[in-house]
């Protein structure tokens, strides 16, 4: 994230999000009995921007949003055969962050974030604890 001397910041977001997992069993007339395992993780690649909307009263509070693609990975096992596939999906996220500076470079805080993945038409809300470090300042 690049924080210039203005209210608006720009950046790139990526990461690793565990979306869901399923563990069950099935006994179908057609194929017989099997354990079911399936999971989905996402790796977003987003252009994001954030803004301090109360710079005077709450300078450490930011709202942010971004759009881009999610790379989705499906893994698991059924009827003795691995499940392994990946797809791309468009998506976006919206959120709000509050960071408290611990030193000149370190901050700690919390974030609430909403994700939408269009291919799956799935939404997700996350509540996170954040550790922030300023890599480079000038």
């Amino acid at each position, binding site marked *: 994230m690049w924080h210039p001397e203005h209210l608006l910041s720009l950046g790139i977001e990526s990461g690793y999000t565990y979306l869901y997992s*399923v563990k069950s069993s099935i006994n179908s007339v*057609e194929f017989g009995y099997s354990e079911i395992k399936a999971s*989905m993780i996402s790796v977003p690649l987003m252009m994001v921007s954030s803004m301090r909307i109360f710079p005077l009263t709450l300078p450490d509070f930011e709202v942010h949003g971004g759009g881009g693609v999610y790379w989705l990975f499906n893994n698991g096992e059924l009827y003795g*055969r691995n*499940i392994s*596939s990946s*797809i791309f999906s468009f998506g976006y996220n919206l959120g709000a962050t509050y960071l408290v500076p611990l030193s000149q470079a370190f901050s700690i805080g919390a974030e609430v974030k909403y994700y939408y993945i269009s291919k799956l*038409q799935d939404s997700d809300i996350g509540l996170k604890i954040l550790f922030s470090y300023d890599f480079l300042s000038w």
Partner: protein
Amino acid sequence: MILQGGRLDSVLFFFGYWRYGINSETGLINFHISSFEGGSKIVSGDSSGLKIAIRGSYGEGDNLPGNPFKLEYLRPFSEEVRQKNFYILAHRGGGRNSDYLQASENSIEIIQLAERLGANGIELDVQLTKDGVPVIYHDPDINLRLTQKSVIWGNIEDFTFAQLRTFVKLKNGENLPSLREALETVINKTGLRFVWLDLKSLQNEIPYVIKVIKELNIKERDLEIVLGIPTNEKFEDLYNIQKSIKISSLCELEVEYVRALDSRVWAPRWTQGLQTELVREMHSEGRLTFSWTLDEPAFIQKYISEGEFDGILTNHPTLVAYHYYLK
């Protein structure tokens, strides 16, 4: 129309719902056939000189039927209609999900509905699973246009048939059908006369499709099954296979490709026009000609009245049937 019916002496009564063939508008309808306008003869089973008039009314939406209508028998089908073996081919097994039919596209259920929609043949889309099972599905990937939400996502070719059957349900909750199940349904549960298998897989599915067709008993049915060749890649695949075995095919490419494959059917896109000279050339070589995918009412009428195609692939077989049988 979906109707309930009954009779009082020799008067026949019907009531229920109507729906347009080309959109999802519906309403209530009721009508009757009086005893002197055909009712008596229908009840007695006497078809000699049968002339029916249907009188009733229909409403739009939730309104009570208030618009009167009369349908009257005028003449039998023309000699041309009775003589010609015209193919009304329903797209995606019978119709698309976007037309809100009572079954999902490319499902076993829609195949069984196709004849009631006016079709005498169907087009089915073929994909190949990871373990080499040809299945009936349009897109290369699992998506919410065609399926309900699932825990697996990706391309059809990434999953085995058992995995797809376990996790994936079509839009209206049906199972994803295998090609074998779809063709067995056509053979055993319909009177359909033509199946166009549109080869959609990113892999070479042709050997697997041929194997399924060969294992089915279609000899006792008036039924043709052809492999649809939509691209140069599929042309190459089939051309190489045909060096050792002859397969009945339908080619969407230019006529040179049709001749190279010795295809049973030439099927140009409807936007290429009537192409009457080329159609006649194909006929002179003993081939059929189909136009696809023709949905515009004005062009359906034009292609039937002015064209010389042997069949039309459409999402609205009801409309094609209407224009064809009035010819």
